[in-house]
């Protein structure tokens, strides 16, 4: 079946260091892989997506890497700041009929140490 999961539920990173959040997926037919950020008391916020025919995509201070061989997705945040404290969800967009669902992973909490 489909599943999107994360290796670690909590990640603590020193302010200023780079953060790497990992995700494993099982559906090889997904067309897009996505990262969302959810701050306390707010709904999830779209960060970045990567299409299945790409290996890497960069945004502002974030980089997403996709390794289809081992079905692994990661989000790298450069120079982590206190505002990066949040729960990060990976998600995938399976290509199935005309279904527009995305499947979310359970989330990793990123904790920034001063």
């Amino acid at each position: 079946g489909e599943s999107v999961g994360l290796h670690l539920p909590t990640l603590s990173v020193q302010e200023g260091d780079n953060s790497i959040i990992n995700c494993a997926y099982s559906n090889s037919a997904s067309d897009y892989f996505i990262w969302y950020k959810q701050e306390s008391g707010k709904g999830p916020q779209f960060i970045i997506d990567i299409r299945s025919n790409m290996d890497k995509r960069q945004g502002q201070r974030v980089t997403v890497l996709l390794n289809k061989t081992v079905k692994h997705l990661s989000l790298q945040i450069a120079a982590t700041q206190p505002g990066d404290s949040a729960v990060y969800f990976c998600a995938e967009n399976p290509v199935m009929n005309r279904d527009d669902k995305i499947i979310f992973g359970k989330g990793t909490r990123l904790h920034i140490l001063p």
Partner: protein
Amino acid sequence: DVKVTQSSRYLVKRTGEKVFLECVQDMDHENMFWYRQDPGLGLRLIYFSYDVKMKEKGDIPEGYSVSREKKERFSLILESASTNQTSMYLCASSLLRRAYEQYFGPGTRLTVT
């Protein structure tokens, strides 16, 4: 900026009551979604809609129904609320061909007593 608003941030209802959760988006998005979020279970899709009067079941539709009479508004209905429906409910919207880029509202924390 896309704005998705939900009618209430906090709601307390009694078992057996009929509950309406309203969601409005202002970006003319075709798709709208209702999720519930529970600790340890993540985000689970209840229903979604890709057009007015159209609806599709998500992963956990039991005990819920939806209504989409206007493009900008998507309502979630709990016909007879039960305690196991105590949860955070999140509404989202997206463009039809970018369903992976969803914009979420702030959520409604529903407690059923």
